[in-house]
């Protein structure tokens, strides 16, 4: 296995789904089994990804492989200098792990959808859309420059739009598709501005070259402030795509799409693209930009967690939970915990995809019932779904022996040490609070769905365990949520191979004065030197070490507390949920109505747009139309005057000439008698007149 094989495998994994998309789309109308082609291709892609990941981690673990071609060579451009745009792929550990995650979940969702979508009238088209989504996502993951990332970024937006609105006959589905697309566009605008800033300053889109230039001290407009601004602008793209506050409103609505799509796009991969992008630009983020990112992450973790407490739609609860967990990842990156942020992205992808597929299994067997208040008692009917769902819930709540515990604990420990080093303790507080809320709402969901007595007996009687194509993906994802895949010590991920060997925090290239103080490396840490890639100073490493055990116990405590409250409230019914809700009516309503974000945006964004269109309409009707009508009126008046002038003055002159000629003609006709004597008389008379006239003169 050499490097070129690795590159070929990655390129295959990138372009094969595109081929699958085209073939399935073209043959789908006539060939009933076109979906099998797409499934076959995605299986090959999964295989290629596994081999590529294995080879990379086994042989090239410390080496980044880049393959690029020059796309556009503009030569020497005035003002900017030498300019060429490269396309290429960057294979490092992060991108290959991500490629594996994407292809695995994509493949599982493909297989799952064979059963889940059976009988749909656009069955083959659905698989074609999954193909283009996989292609676009692979593009984001593998690209080595931000221009390609932006192109694929828009492509995932497109495939997301197509799949959310897949059942477009439903008004709510087509509306949700539009909403997702438009809200994403707002964030992408910021990202585009950031890309332009980068290109104007560095004349390249390639990550490595940009970072190298920043490392040499070249900054946008020669100021650290603008470097911060560029980082925040790029992060705006992540706010849109990863559904961060304040653009999180599209994700819950996106649940109108088919449930496997929600698992693939809106839980595991596409929404994680924003977080992935932040990991890519992590080294160029200044301290201020990171603080901004951490704040957005904390808000996005907290607000949706409170909303998820009261929702009764099984998918809505999971959607808000997704936003909350994405907020966690963003916050982790913001507080400098690069490795834990990405680690949580991976673990979350598995268990959240599992949760969505589990909920899909429930919805499928309950004949598209999504209200958890009408479920209950499904534990006996659907044992595989139940047990896997329980395991995922334990993982997302952060109970030991699960992958979720490892990554979540790491984030909380990082937040705590961040607090002790910089004084911003709020991130740790929010982290633990969200951990409590997460454990509570997940077990509320679990208990209401699977435990207790069935509420809708008719539907309950028809409920059944889903077929193997749907349960096997659940089991696979549950297995991948076990700690053993990441570390041998179930309590400490730091010791495991994932964080110790595979994911190493890259060195920040930002000028030292613009970094967090603790990221300035005064003396190189012993073990860090081996990799030469640790950005953190000694005090950070020590602080992280110190906060490890407190964070672990505290997070375990809050998780168990959350589960306990949910258990008492919904299983044992020792606490009356309705009574508690009644005693906090305003808060309850606030949460139930999603903090009134939709209403707020309805008033601000939509209302303002409507007002603006009213004003523009008035402007059009009054000013523009006035000008047009005025010029029309002026033309009309001018032409009337000109017409009058023509009719009376010009025609009058012409007619007068003719009339005068005619008059004299008639008058002089009489002299033309033909009689010689008259002529003679006139001649004589004329001579006399002439003579006297001459005399007088």
């Amino acid at each position, binding site marked *: 296995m050499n490097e070129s094989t690795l590159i070929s495998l990655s390129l295959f994994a990138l372009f094969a789904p595109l081929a699958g998309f085209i073939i399935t789309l073209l043959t789908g109308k006539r060939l009933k089994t076109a979906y099998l082609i797409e499934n076959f291709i995605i299986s090959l892609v999964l295989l290629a990804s596994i081999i590529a990941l294995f080879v990379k981690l086994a042989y090239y673990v410390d080496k980044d492989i880049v393959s690029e071609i020059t796309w556009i060579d503009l030569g020497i451009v005035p003002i900017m200098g030498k300019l060429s745009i490269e396309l290429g792929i960057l294979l490092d550990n992060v991108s290959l792990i991500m490629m594996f995650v994407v292809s695995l979940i994509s493949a599982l969702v493909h297989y799952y959808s064979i059963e889940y979508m059976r009988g749909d009238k656009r069955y083959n088209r659905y698989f074609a859309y999954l193909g283009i989504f996989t292609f676009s996502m692979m593009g984001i993951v593998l690209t080595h420059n931000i221009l390609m990332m932006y192109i694929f970024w828009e492509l995932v937006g497109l495939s997301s739009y197509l799949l959310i609105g897949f059942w477009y006959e439903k008004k709510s589905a087509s509306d949700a598709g539009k909403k997702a697309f438009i809200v994403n566009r707002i964030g992408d605008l910021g990202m585009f501005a950031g890309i332009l800033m980068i290109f104007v300053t560095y004349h390249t889109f390639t990550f490595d070259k940009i970072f190298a230039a920043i490392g040499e001290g070249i900054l946008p407009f020669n100021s650290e402030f603008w470097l911060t601004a560029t980082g925040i602008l790029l992060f705006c793209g992540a706010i849109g795509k990863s559904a961060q506050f304040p653009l999180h409103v599209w994700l819950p609505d996106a649940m109108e799409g088919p449930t496997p799509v929600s698992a693939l796009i809106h839980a595991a991969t596409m929404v994680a693209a924003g977080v992935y992008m932040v990991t890519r630009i992590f080294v160029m983020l200044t301290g201020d930009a990171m603080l901004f990112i951490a704040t957005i992450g904390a808000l996005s973790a907290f607000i949706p967690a409170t909303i998820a407490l009261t929702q009764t739609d099984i998918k809505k609860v999971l959607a808000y939970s997704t936003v909350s967990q994405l907020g966690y990842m963003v916050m982790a990156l913001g507080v400098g915990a690069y490795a834990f942020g990405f680690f949580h992205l991976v673990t979350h992808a598995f268990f959240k995809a599992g949760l969505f597929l589990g909920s899909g299994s429930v919805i499928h067997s309950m004949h598209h019932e999504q209200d958890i208040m009408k479920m209950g008692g499904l534990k006996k009917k659907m044992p595989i779904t139940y047990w896997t769902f329980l395991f995922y819930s334990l993982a997302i709540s952060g109970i030991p022996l699960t992958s979720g515990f490892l990554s979540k604990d790491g984030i909380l420990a990082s937040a705590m040490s961040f607090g002790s080093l910089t004084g911003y303790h709020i991130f740790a507080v929010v982290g633990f609070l969200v951990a409590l809320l997460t454990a509570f709402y997940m077990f509320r969901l679990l208990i209401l769905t699977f435990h207790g007595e069935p509420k809708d007996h008719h539907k309950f009687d028809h409920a059944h365990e889903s077929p193997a194509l749907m349960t096997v993906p659940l089991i696979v994802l549950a297995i991948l949520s076990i700690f053993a895949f990441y570390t041998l010590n179930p309590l400490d991920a730091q010791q495991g191979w994932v964080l110790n060997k595979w994911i190493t925090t890259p060195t920040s290239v930002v000028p030292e004065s613009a970094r967090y103080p603790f990221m300035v490396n005064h003396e190189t840490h012993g073990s860090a030197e081996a990799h030469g890639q640790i950005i953190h100073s000694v005090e950070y490493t020590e602080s992280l070490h110190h906060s490890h055990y407190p964070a672990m116990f505290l997070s375990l405590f809050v998780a168990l507390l959350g589960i306990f409250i949910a258990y008492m409230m919904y299983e044992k019914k020792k606490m009356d949920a309705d009574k508690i809700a009644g005693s906090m009516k305003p808060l309850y309503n606030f949460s139930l109505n999603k903090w009134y974000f939709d209403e707020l945006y309805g008033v601000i964004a939509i209302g303002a747009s409507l007002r603006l269109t009213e004003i523009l309409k008035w402007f059009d009707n009054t000013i523009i139309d006035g000008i047009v009508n005025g010029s029309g009126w002026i033309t009309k008046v001018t032409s009337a005057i000109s017409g009058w002038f023509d009719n009376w003055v010009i025609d009058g002159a012409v007619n007068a000439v003719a009339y005068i000629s005619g008059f004299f003609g008639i008058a002089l006709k009489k002299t*033309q*008698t*033909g*009689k*010689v*004597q008259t002529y*003679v*008389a006139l001649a*004589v008379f004329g001579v006399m007149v002439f003579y006297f006239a001459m005399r007088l003169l």
Partner: protein
Amino acid sequence: MSSIGLNHFLIISSILFSLGVFGVITRKNAVMVLMGIELILNAANINFVAFSAYGGFPVKGQIIALFVIVLAAAEAAIALAIVLNIYKNFNNVNVDEIDNLRE
């Protein structure tokens, strides 16, 4: 009353000329019109002779007068021939009725 001078001749010739013009304009008969023309020519002849006698260039005026007489004779011959042809065409020589020039 003083002796006869240039003015007397000029007055005579003016009267003769006016009578000639009057004849040309008023007579209906073409032959009478021709006679009017003869009067005008002779009025001119008197002027020539008078100016030659009183004007200081004695021979030239008289020679021209002789030319005019010859011319008048030729003219009379041709004009009478024309009148004869007119009579053949129109059966009269009344100039009022011969107004073909109008067309």
